Structure formats: structure tokens, C-alpha cells
């Protein structure tokens, strides 16, 4: 069987709470033939709206964590002095590893003169495949406090692609994490289009600029959605000016509406629940469709 080229759209925002999940869920309601992915692994909320079924979970292990065998330890302080993450804790004569600080580099194990340190496998989360009314859905849950969220994001995307190939589907719709760090870099890596959701607040504008620099840095095509555009029209104009200067399209302007909050409270999709949003959302969908046809 010939493999289809899988296209990927990611929804990101820089600033948290700008409306990524609202937009992703609404697009999921309109775009046919896709796999839905939640790549915001340390605050995965999309499942709340999509109500997945036939969930199958698989644990995900990250870098190991060092463990000190106190029977063997001769309290020479070597590990303590060498660990750059300050992860070795001494309590009287007892040496132990602070799991929240250990990054699994293995330097202490290599440096220990009596082989008292071993590396223990560390489960950092779980990823799930599932089925929803809107298509197959792949998501994950990072164990709170865990490292390597970027690698779990990569895993979720890889699994979604495998599923897409199996089912001969050629599109991934990805809900991304906030920020500009490793999980975001992992989420946008290799995508065809990034939809940046922003809001007309000074914070929103600042975060938009930074995340737009990030997509530019990685040469990823991006367009903007201004959510709750009418809460500050002056700022909305500023975002539009920014878009123009940077030759980024503004795909949609979504008005503020208490209905979105209400929809989410009832675990319903904003696109279904809020008639007043139908027009801008359909408009957004049409633009994305055209954009994808051009890729």
C-alpha cells in the first residue's frame, strides 16, 4: 500500500489560556478525516470535551533516576561534589537522591568508587489511543513533576502518525502546549502549519511575538487567530499590524462570549454550543482548508 503524506497542523499560543483547546476542539468538529492529538501533556484538557472511548494506555519511561545503596555507600562525598543538579542529599551519614532534582545523567554512578549507585527506571507518564465521535484521538498524561515532557510529546505524535498510516488518514490536528520551551519545540517540529491563538492583551501580544519568533526560527508556516478580539480593539489592531508586518495571515477573529465558558462547563464543543460563533469558526475552517490544499 502506498503511504500517504501525512500533514500536520498544530495549535499553539505562547500564552496559556488563550484558547488553544477551544480552537482545536472546534476544528476537530469541522475538519473531516484526521487524527486528533493532545500534545499539551502536562495539562491535557482536550479529552474533557472529546470524551474518548476504547482507551488504551501505555506507560512511558523517561531517563533513569539514580539510587544509592546505603549498604555499599562509604560516604566519600564524591557524588555529592560532582552532581551539578544538587540532587544528592545527605542526612547525617545517609546519602540519598532527590528525585525531583536528578536529571538521570549517570555521572554519580560513573564516579562512585564502590559501585553503590545504580540507575532505576522512571515512569514519567502514560500515553493513550482512543476513539471519539470526531475521530481517533491520541493523548498523554505526564506524571506531575516529571522531566522530558518533550519526549512524551514526540511519542504522542509518533503514535498518532502510526495510527494515521494504519487507517490511511492524511492529517494530524494537534493541540499544543503553552510557552516556547522543549514541549512546544517538540510539538511544532515537522508540522506543516502552526495556528497561533492569541488574545488582545499586552501579555497576549508579548507572548505572540515570542512564539511567532519561535515558529520563524524553525521555519514553520504560521497564521494567527485572535480570540476574544473585542475585549480590546486597540490591541487587536496592534496584533493585525504585527501580522501584516510579518506577513502572517490572521485566520479569524473570535468575539468574546460567555457561551464558550458555558460550553466548556457543560463539556460541550464551543462550535456546537455557540451559534454566535458559527460564522468566525466556519471562516477559520475554510481558511485552514485552503491553506492545507496549498501545502
Amino acid at each position: 500500500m502506498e503511504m500517504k503524506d501525512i500533514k500536520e497542523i498544530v495549535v499553539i499560543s505562547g500564552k496559556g489560556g488563550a484558547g488553544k483547546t477551544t480552537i482545536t476542539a472546534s476544528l476537530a468538529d469541522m475538519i473531516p478525516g484526521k487524527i486528533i492529538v493532545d500534545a499539551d501533556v502536562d495539562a491535557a484538557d482536550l479529552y474533557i470535551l472529546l470524551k474518548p472511548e476504547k482507551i488504551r494506555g501505555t506507560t512511558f519511561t523517561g531517563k533513569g533516576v539514580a539510587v544509592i545503596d546505603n549498604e555499599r555507600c562509604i560516604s566519600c562525598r564524591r557524588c555529592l561534589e560532582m552532581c551539578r543538579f544538587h540532587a544528592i542529599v545527605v542526612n547525617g551519614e545517609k546519602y540519598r537522591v532527590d528525585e525531583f532534582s536528578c536529571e538521570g545523567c549517570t555521572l554519580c554512578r560513573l564516579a562512585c568508587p564502590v559501585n553503590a549507585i545504580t540507575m532505576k527506571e522512571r515512569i514519567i507518564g502514560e500515553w493513550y489511543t482512543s476513539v471519539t465521535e470526531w475521530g481517533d484521538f491520541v493523548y498523554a498524561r505526564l506524571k506531575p513533576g516529571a522531566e522530558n515532557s518533550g519526549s512524551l510529546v514526540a511519542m504522542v505524535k509518533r503514535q498518532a502518525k502510526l495510527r494515521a498510516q494504519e487507517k490511511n488518514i492524511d492529517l494530524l490536528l494537534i493541540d499544543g502546549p503553552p510557552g516556547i520551551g522543549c514541549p512546544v519545540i517538540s510539538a511544532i517540529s515537522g508540522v506543516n502549519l502552526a495556528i497561533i491563538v492569541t488574545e488582545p492583551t499586552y501579555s497576549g501580544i508579548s507572548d505572540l511575538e515570542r512564539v511567532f519568533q519561535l515558529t520563524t526560527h524553525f521555519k514553520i508556516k504560521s497564521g494567527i487567530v485572535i480570540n476574544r478580539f473585542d475585549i480590546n480593539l486597540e490591541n487587536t489592531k496592534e496584533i493585525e499590524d504585527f501580522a501584516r508586518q510579518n506577513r502572517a495571515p490572521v485566520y479569524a477573529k473570535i468575539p468574546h462570549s460567555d457561551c464558550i465558558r458555558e460550553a466548556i462547563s457543560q463539556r460541550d464543543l464551543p462550535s456546537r454550543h455557540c451559534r454566535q460563533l458559527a460564522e468566525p469558526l466556519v471562516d477559520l475552517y475554510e481558511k485552514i482548508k485552503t491553506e492545507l490544499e496549498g501545502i
Partner: protein
Amino acid sequence: MIIAVASGKGGTGKTLVTTALALSAGECTYIDLDVEEPNGAIFLKPDIREEIAYTVPVPVIDKDKCTFCGACARACVYHALVVIPISRSTVVFPELCHSCGVCGFVCPVEGAVRETHREIGKIRKGNRGSIQFIEGRLNIGQPSAVPLISGITSNYITGENGRLYLLDSSPGTACPVVETLKNSDYVLLVTEPTPFGLNDLELAVELVRDMGKKAGIIINKDDERQTLIDDFCRRVQLPILLRIPYSLEIQEAYSRGIPLTEVRPVMKTQLKDLMGRITDGRW
């Protein structure tokens, strides 16, 4: 006293709350540790007096000394080094490096692995009245916020007697948040009464409990018809310390970088009282 403000879900109002706390406290140090998207300066409008480039050590390979044995690449769990013996090259990927020092430790040749400094972000310092302002700002394209956060907390939280530090955290529950909470005495979790807010609050509570931190809840965009956060807090026995009403007026002011204490001056007393109770250990 070090109070960290975290949230799980993004956009619930961490910066709104932290800057309002700083403006109510009188003398304190506000530290913006949401280094990926720092926004505290928008509300506090500090006079920035100093900007420091923050660097981390990364390996450089001395080509004349390297024997291309591959020991460093095998030992690096982050895959930040690749050795290609056939073309006599050792390549370092600095973005993947965690600065752990393993490569230098395992290298059999004296001096073949040295370390150089690589800038990953900026630290900006300034003042707004009696508030000392410190901000971390991660460079674009740099994946890890953790070294910048730990660099700031270890250098600027001096533990000066009685001084109040307010740490504005990044959203989520992953490693940057852990790094921020690690040094704190108390964690304020800001949430909103929606299923998203609750879901992410549950994760944040799991994290603070795992870390053995004391915590209290602030409900932003409060709506008395929505009691899901109240129910959860009762179940896990966490105090609700403050409610900020759902108000377009506050949101509109927020959009222009106007602090909460200016839109609702009465909240100053409430916030001051809240910090007082935390400092006294009453919460």
C-alpha cells in the same frame, strides 16, 4: 518567606495575582520565573537597571586531542554528542546538552573535552518603588527553561531574614514548575471554576503534595454558580484563600497591563492579610 504562585492551567491569572501581591506587600522581591513567556514587567513597569546574559557550560571538543573513541557519545544520555570516527569528527548539539559534565568525566584523553559558556537567556533586574524586580527571559529556540530558573533562584534568593519573595511560575506541572516550587515555603495555586481549571488544578495539587509543600487556592474568574473547585478543595482539604470575581472590567484592565490593585484597590487589604496569614503559618 518564599511564596510561589503556580496554576497547572495557563491563563488563570498567575501574573495578575503575583503582581497584585507584590504591589500590596510594600517591600518584597518579585521574580518572574515564567521565563518562556515573562509578563510581570507589563504590570509592574519596573525601571530596569541591569541586564545579564545567563550562560550554561557546554562541551567543546579539541579536535587535535580527540581520538574519536566515542566514549562521550555513549555516556551522554541526552544524545548531545555524536562521534563519527570515519570522518574524524565529534559533533556537539548544544541545545540537547544538560551541562551534566559526563562527557568530560568519561573522556580518556586529558583536555580533549573542555567547557565553554553558552547563553540561554537574560536576567533583568530593576525596581518599582520598594519592589525589587527580577525576571528571567529564555532565548528563543532554547528548549530548557530549568537551568535559567535554577540560576536565578540560587543567585538571587538570599534567604535574607524576613524578606518576602514572590515567585511567578510558568503554567503546567513539568520540570520548570518543579524548579520554581523547589525552594518555596508556600504555594498559591490560581485556578478558575471550569472543568479545564479543575483538571489542571488536580494535577498541580498532586505535584505540591508529592513535593511536600504547603498550598492554598485562589479562585479567579469566580462565579458562584460553579462550585466544582469548592467541592474539590473540600475533598482534598485545601483552603480557598481568595476569590477574584469574574469581571469584564478586570479583564479589560488586564488587557492594558493595569494591575488588579488599581482596578480593585480594596483587594490590597485582602492580599496583604493573605500574605500575613501565610507568613504567620496560619494557613
